[in-house]
């Protein structure tokens, strides 16, 4: 009790001291501290560094440049900073860094944040600090479900979209029998559930679905079993991502399952995954891609600019970061201020079209970005005409079918 009393006393003294120093700044500017600060918090050193990482920071800088070019003198502020931090995929680092970015670096918005536990942690900080958070890198639907809040937006993709895009489209195209292998953690389990619903909804059948340990190097148990299942599956659906996906695909090729009539469908794949495996290892694989750089002239023009800056072609995460930054800045422009509540009001229900988001709406009920996505197939290397040209777009899945209905658990 004594200890608690002391704590209370210290806290009281602290309150007074902080009261002296940290009062509201006052002053007439509509932009807090006279500048807009966009913070990119993502993985810059580990497994997601390639597919997002530092190049997402570049993409956000491109958005700032385009915003300035578009509005010129009319821009609500000249001073726009882009800052970055590396959360190393650790939720506790993401949590403290997010607080620091909002409090100390005066970030007006935090963007990207892959890894769902980290994203959810940052969403909570955004809620308590009442600051805008636009998540791009994480796939969990919880961000717009049970854990949604007024200041959090989810931009680009999620597990539902990935599973439904691939599951129902491939089934409707004739592959009725599926064998699903998924990594045994929340992402994989979510994907498996959504995938099964999608396949069955499209009239297909899940012959079997097996959880694999995560992470895992050896998938031979599952791959050897596949041809012997009855009825024989036409597609192997793998929900593995990153290094696990690379291993599974290599072993799939070693067992020559494609020659045995079992196609491959992948839950989540980034352009960088195809680049590291090589087109031939994945040729024919179908997957849902929220955006592809070479899908049309507009995408290509932007990808050229990105290539000039970074030496690489953008993944959809890079493009989504660009688009999110652009839409955020546009919302600030419309609102005439960077006050979170006003910016949120501008973003909610906003309909727009940009290089990443086609036919797009930010749904007011749960702050999920709805936009057209694509079902893609990996080309064989003989059809690859230039570096990074790996995908053929099979069809466009319209925005209103690509994503789930709002989750009733979400109360903003």
């Amino acid at each position: 009790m004594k200890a608690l009393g002391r704590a209370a006393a210290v806290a009281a003294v602290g309150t007074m001291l902080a009261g002296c120093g940290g009062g509201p700044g006052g002053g007439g500017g509509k932009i807090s501290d006279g500048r807009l600060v966009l913070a990119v918090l993502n993985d810059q050193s580990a497994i997601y560094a390639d597919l997002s990482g530092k190049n997402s920071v570049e993409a956000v800088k491109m958005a700032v440049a385009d915003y300035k070019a578009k509005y010129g003198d009319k821009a609500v502020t000249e001073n726009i900073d882009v800052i970055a931090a590396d959360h190393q995929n650790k939720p506790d680092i993401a949590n403290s860094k997010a607080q620091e970015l909002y409090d100390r670096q005066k970030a007006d918005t935090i963007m990207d944040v892959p890894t769902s536990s980290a994203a959810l942690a940052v969403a909570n900080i955004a809620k308590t600090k009442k600051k805008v958070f636009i998540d791009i890198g994480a796939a969990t639907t919880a961000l717009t479900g049970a854990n949604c809040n007024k200041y959090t937006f989810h931009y680009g993709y999620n597990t539902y979209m990935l599973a439904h895009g691939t599951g129902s489209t491939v089934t409707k195209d004739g592959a009725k029998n599926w064998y699903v292998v998924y990594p045994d953690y929340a992402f994989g389990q979510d994907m498996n559930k959504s995938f099964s619903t999608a396949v069955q909804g499209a009239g297909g059948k899940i012959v079997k679905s097996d959880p694999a340990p995560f992470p895992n190097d050896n998938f031979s148990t599952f791959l050897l079993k596949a041809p012997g299942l009855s009825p024989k599956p036409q597609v192997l659906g793998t929900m593995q991502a990153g290094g696990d996906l690379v291993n599974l695909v290599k072993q799939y090729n070693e067992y020559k399952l494609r020659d045995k009539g079992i196609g491959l469908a992948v839950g989540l794949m980034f352009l960088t995954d195809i680049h590291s495996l090589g087109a031939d290892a994945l040729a024919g694989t179908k997957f849902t891609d929220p955006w592809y750089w070479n899908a049309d002239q507009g995408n290509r023009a932007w990808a050229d600019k990105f290539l000039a800056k970074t030496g690489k072609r953008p993944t959809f995460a890079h493009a989504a970061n660009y688009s999110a930054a652009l839409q955020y800045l546009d919302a600030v422009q419309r609102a005439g201020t960077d006050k979170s509540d006003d910016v949120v009001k501008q973003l909610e229900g906003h309909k727009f079209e940009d290089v990443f988001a086609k036919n797009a709406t930010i749904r007011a009920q749960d702050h999920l970005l709805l936009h057209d996505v694509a079902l893609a197939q990996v080309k064989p290397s003989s059809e690859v005409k230039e570096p990074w040209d790996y995908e053929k777009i099979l069809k466009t899945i319209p925005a209103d079918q690509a994503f789930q209905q709002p989750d009733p658990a979400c109360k903003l």
Partner: protein
Amino acid sequence: MILSKLAARPVLLLFGLVAAFALPWLIYPPVAMDIACWALFAAALDLLLGFTGLLSFGHAAFWGGAAYAAGLIAVHWGVPFPVAVLGGALFAAVLAVPIGYLSVRLRGIYFAMVTLAFAQMVYFVVNQWRDLTGGENGLQGVPREFFGMDLSDPFFFYYAGLPFVLLGLFAVWRIVRSPFGRVLVSIRDNPARAQALGYPVERYKLLAFVLSAGLSGLAGGLYAISHGFASLHEVYWTTSGQAVMAVVLGGIGTLWGGAIGAALIVELNDYLATAGFTETGLVTGGIFVVIVLVFRRGVWGTARDLIAARAARRSPAAGTDSAAAQVEAPDRQEVTAR
């Protein structure tokens, strides 16, 4: 030398307390809270590693288990946060009973392996029990309730949480200085002899294990409340490794060294997050290698030896006091001799 030691102790204690209270003024308060939690975690582990001679590689189970327990208590019952933190510590201590009972029969690397195995079991349970723990999304939205007081500012929460850390550190210090602690040291140095003198060695080890786990849990529970969530990372083996690392960097068997090691690791993690290096692992690894090579007994252990050596040079007579000095600091000499 004894006289100078007696004078030095309150000074060091004062210095430590000032540092503990000044920390959130010097560095970012949430990071300061992390350092405080990790300092207690390291000290609790040192109780086992430095004073009982057991290298546990599974303390993440207790730190993380308590983090989840405290988080769940706070989420579901909305009790004031001290209750949740103490509940977490209690959970860790209870969890440590069966794990410790089965592990303390083993020694050395086997003990380390078995504790690691148990911790991994805890990890998988937490990972799979999604309805309760949220799987790899983590347990989110842990409230920081304290009789309606607004503790959302990390600066104030630091001072609200600090008493727990100080209490925990005091407990470790008290345990080490108690007759019970003396027995632990004797078990560490010569278990056969301790047994011959009539001490039930395994029961002592088990109690040390449970106490260490409970104190680690105190730190873990506080950590969860401070961050507002508990994640799988807390029960993962790298967390056990980081705790051992903090103890080794600070100095095994020095108690306060762990705090220095913890501060070093947490600060380094925090700094690297915005430093712009891509090879974070390489940088941290490199720094640790250098520290281990330069400070053979850890930062604090080496510093203390240097101070002692200088004092001995100043008063040549001190050499005769060495036996007495050894009684004062029984925890120093034997550790490296083992």
